């Protein structure tokens, strides 16, 4: 297989998944809506004291993003599993890990990117400093793809199961902790005027690690789930 055809397959799969998502436009907004709803609940639960919300804002936004990302994971492989096209994705001359990467990228464009776009609005809701909103978006840009990539491993392990819901959160959330820690920490540090390059580099290296390491276990797990 030449390199050219591999990138062609990658793009074809990406295009197919985006097209399918576009034909289900109504579902596109579900994770987004969930994200906004959870963030809205916090001021109602803790009281709308500005100082309190301000200090908690990075944590609230990131935890909500984490949960929204987790809830949307199921759509990565579910429909392909149900209609049998997942088998075809495994049984061809192309390395499954690359195809997995294309699917995860499509999934992130559909679910992760919108979170990033709406986040500044929510940051304003919670009274986050305007100076750090850019940084918040940057942490989401670096962090949410990691969530999708790690989530793909877990969802690949559970895609064959009828009820994977709670199990999925148990499998996924502990692995999300490092991203949560460094992303929120970066924003908090920036709020008190400290440098955050270290945190950003660490998030970037998480992303690189996840891109290179997770496609293999995902591919292996898909094969297991189909056998």
């Amino acid at each position, binding site marked *: *297989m030449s390199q050219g055809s591999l990138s*062609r*397959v990658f793009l*074809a*799969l990406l295009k*197919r998944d985006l*097209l*399918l998502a576009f*034909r*289900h436009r109504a579902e596109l907004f579900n994770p987004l809506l969930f994200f906004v709803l959870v963030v809205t609940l916090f001021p109602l639960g803790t009281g709308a004291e500005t100082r309190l919300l301000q200090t908690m804002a990075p944590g609230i936004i990131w935890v909500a993003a984490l949960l929204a990302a987790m809830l949307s994971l199921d759509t990565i492989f579910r*429909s392909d599993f*149900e*209609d*049998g*096209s997942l*088998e*075809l*994705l*495994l*049984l*061809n*001359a*192309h*390395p*499954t890990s690359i195809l997995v990467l294309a699917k995860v990228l499509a999934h992130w464009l559909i679910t992760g990117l919108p979170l990033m776009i709406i986040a500044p609005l929510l940051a304003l809701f919670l009274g986050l400093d305007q100076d750090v909103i850019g940084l918040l978006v940057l942490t989401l840009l670096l962090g949410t793809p990691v969530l999708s990539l790690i989530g793909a491993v877990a969802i690949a392990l559970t895609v064959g199961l009828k009820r994977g819901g709670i199990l999925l959160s148990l499998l996924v959330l502990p692995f999300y902790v490092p991203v949560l820690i460094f992303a929120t920490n970066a924003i908090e540090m920036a709020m008190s005027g400290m440098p955050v390059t270290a945190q950003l580099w660490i998030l970037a290296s998480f992303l690189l690690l996840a891109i290179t390491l997770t496609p293999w276990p995902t591919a292996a797990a898909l*094969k297991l789930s*189909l*056998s």
Partner: protein
Amino acid sequence: MMSLEVRDLSCIRDDRILFSDVNINLFSGQLLLVEGDNGSGKTSLLRILCGIRLPEQGQVTWVRQSDDQKSSIAVHGQESYAGEMAFLGHLDGNKLDLSVTENLEFSRSLALGNNNTIKDVLERVGLEHFDDLQVSNLSAGQRRRLALARLLLSGAYLWILDEPFTALDKKGIAMVEREINAQLEQGGLVIMTSHHSVSFDNDKVIKLSLSQ
């Protein structure tokens, strides 16, 4: 010349031994008909042969042989084998929200490919007038035909078909038999299961019975 060699294959599912010591030698131009009752492990066998499922024991080897050289590879975990094999399972593998043509375009980009055009194969499976329809608007039989059109586009040497006649009408069955014959004629290999009785030249057909 291609051939598939199966040695001492056994399979256990949910603690039950489905079959053991299965040996097969299948050469170019031959069809393997797998027979057996429900639950005898036909589907499991096909899934092992196409490389999705790991066998409990035994080996499956894909042998390519030309005039001067011979190469054999173990089936499991080899992408080069998966490219030369096309699988049709119980599920059609079509995306319901894509049109017939979009489905085929995508499967073509996955496969090794051959010279057949999408228009050609749609004509051969009798879907030429449905090319821009979404698959969700097709009947079960038409969806099965679309899945078969995918095989014709794949350019694979080996077809592994699990109940290919499901949901097809008489014409459809005749069409599939015709295409299988053509595939064998070209030197391809076919492995299939079927509840229907099939009419093929006896000298091409090898039967394997899984019932004890």
